[in-house]
């Protein structure tokens, strides 16, 4: 039915099967869109946020998708700037994932603000001292870079490629892609970092506050580094999921191992910095503000030391160890364990750095603030996931995302 659109010699499931799959995800998207509409029309009272807990579940989702979408800029940087050419076999997937993540992040920000119609104030009346301004600028600019990176892939669709203008355009864009990728990497370094800065500069919040360098707190550098380190984990996770669903091998192992190895070393170096940062904060920064390290991890049901353990050991040391040791990373089960744990680890880190920040009391007579998201928040947080499933499915079906697919599946 849609065979004219499917890449030549590629095997895809029949259209009805595909349509059913998309419809299922579509229902979830509609549910999310309904919740989003409620938030826009009736306001943020639809959420369970309150004056003590002003950042909601979806802000965590926002930071998390940006972190795991970091695979796009880092893979782009490795391929186009550092010239690791074999990564061209996975860069398309990284770009699609990046596009999904960043468009979701922008959508979430549009739902999150109390007066969405005034959102442009952040550009027009920008306060250059605010980390959030830096986030908004780099995020929207980097999103346009991702669009630019995504366009050539779309234009390579069998039908579109037949139109001469599009054919030339996609070819020419590939020609200058290194410039775009370098710009994207530059932007990414700043906005990943400034997202880290968002919490790190809050000197009124001892749990989040970090000393730093120039105008940036240490979390600025940690966030950039962790996004680059863990982003590829998510790219590989998605790759493994797609391979599982399509029952096909799509990228050669040597490419996967290269990316996994780089990711492993990045995570290792990141962890060293993260542990130093945590220790310094626990022993110097927090006590100087009058806080015991343990005062952030006790007295309530939810935020125990387990979260620190999960972030640093389960989501850090274990995946790093697996990914840097050749035998382990080339064992397919261990590899999957490592990339999944890595993805979860960075998500936990983002949770800690935005949501846990809100929870511990600062004034001595204050109480712990915990909150439970409303269904509208859950729906709008699930929305990007379903949307991502649809977009990646469409891309896989109609675009030549995996250059090695033909070779690996020749019969």
């Amino acid at each position: 039915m849609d065979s004219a659109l499917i890449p030549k010699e590629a095997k895809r499931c029949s259209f009805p099967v595909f349509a059913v799959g998309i419809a299922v995800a579509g229902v979830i998207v509609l549910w999310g869109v309904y919740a989003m509409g409620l938030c826009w029309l009736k306001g943020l009272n639809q959420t369970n946020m309150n004056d003590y807990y002003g950042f909601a579940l979806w802000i965590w989702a926002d930071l998390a998708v940006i972190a795991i979408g970091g695979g796009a800029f880092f893979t782009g940087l490795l391929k186009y700037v550092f010239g690791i050419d074999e990564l061209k076999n996975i860069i398309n997937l990284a770009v699609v994932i990046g596009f999904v993540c960043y468009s979701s992040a922008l959508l979430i920000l549009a739902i999150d603000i109390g007066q969405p119609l005034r959102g442009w104030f952040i550009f027009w009346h920008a306060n250059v001292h605010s980390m959030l301004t830096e986030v908004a600028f780099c995020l929207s600019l980097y999103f346009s870079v991702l669009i630019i990176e995504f366009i050539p892939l779309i234009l390579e669709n069998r039908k579109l490629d037949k139109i001469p203008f599009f054919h030339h355009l996609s070819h020419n864009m590939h020609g200058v892609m290194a410039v775009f990728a370098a710009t994207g990497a530059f932007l990414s370094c700043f906005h990943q970092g400034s997202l880290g800065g968002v919490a790190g500069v809050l000197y009124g919040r001892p749990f989040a506050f970090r000393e730093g360098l120039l105008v940036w707190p240490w979390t600025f550098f940690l966030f950039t580094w962790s996004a680059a380190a863990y982003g590829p984990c998510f790219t590989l996770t998605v790759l493994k999921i797609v391979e599982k669903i399509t029952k096909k091998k799509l990228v050669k192992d040597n490419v996967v191992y290269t990316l996994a190895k780089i990711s492993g070393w990045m995570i290792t170096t990141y962890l060293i910095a993260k542990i130093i940062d945590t220790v310094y904060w626990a022993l110097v920064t927090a006590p100087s503000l009058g806080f015991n390290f343990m005062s952030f991890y006790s007295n309530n049901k939810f935020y125990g030391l387990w979260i620190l353990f999960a972030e640093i050991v389960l989501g850090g040391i274990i995946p790093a160890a697996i990914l840097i040791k050749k035998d382990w990373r080339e064992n397919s089960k261990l590899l999957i364990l490592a990339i999944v744990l890595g993805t979860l680890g960075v998500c936990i880190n983002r949770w800690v750095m935005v949501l846990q920040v809100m929870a511990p009391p600062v004034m001595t007579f204050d109480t712990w603030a915990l909150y439970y998201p409303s269904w509208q928040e859950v729906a709008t947080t699930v929305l990007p996931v379903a949307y991502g499933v649809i977009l990646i499915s469409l891309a896989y079906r109609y675009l030549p995302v995996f250059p090695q697919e033909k070779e690996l599946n020749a019969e």
Partner: protein
Amino acid sequence: MIKKHNKAKAHKFGMVIDLDKCTGCGSCMVACMSENNVPFKENETNKKDSITWMHVYRLTNGKSFPDTEICYIPRPCMHCGGKGDHGHSPCVSVCPATATDYDYTTGIVSQIYTRCFGCRYCMAACPYHARYFNWWDPIWPSGMEKTLSPDVSPRMRGVVEKCSFCFHRYQAAKDTAYFEEREDITEDEYQTACAQACPANAIVFGDLNNSEHEVYKLVKPDPYHGGRPKEPKAFRLLERLGTNPKVYYISEREWVRKAGDNYVKGKEKDHKKHNTE
């Protein structure tokens, strides 16, 4: 003439609250709400999403009867001077749209509702919970909108608001001074609604830069340390964070003074020295 006005010595308006006098009656909260057109809900059970620019906290010394003591702490916006008292308050420096700023001529932290787009970053930055979000559009009981103050603009849903130290009263006092061709206003001409409403006279308001004013005499702010009180009985909330608030508290009771800040166990003495040096 205009230039002279601007070169006049900068004010630094602040508040001193005597916690031993405060009975926790809540008059300041009520006066503040009616003075500043603060919206309210039909059901105010959930205190964490209702707006109280001036909020009275209740704390105890944690001892059992008969040694139990209670203290009430009224908490307006602290109008922090920020690190080094340079005007980089925790909230001002983070606002992405410049919807809040630090006025160097009065030391007051503003909040411009029509500029705010409701990202709530400032609320996350404020350790005092002095900033409130309008989760709903205000609904006034019928006829009540006629009783709203014309000097304070009502807020819409989706923006952040907070105590302004009744800045409109400062404006009105200045108008009178202009009309009478005076250079400056007097202490009693500019008083906040909460200070005037307090039946126990626990709240004193004035210019911390003016040694004639009561607030100055009560706490003796140290200009070389961001206004830290030299008076041993006075303290500020969360002094160690370096926010440099302009709201001071006074108490004879040591446990109350200690409740103003956090301490690492075993290091209380260090801090006491630091607080009174």
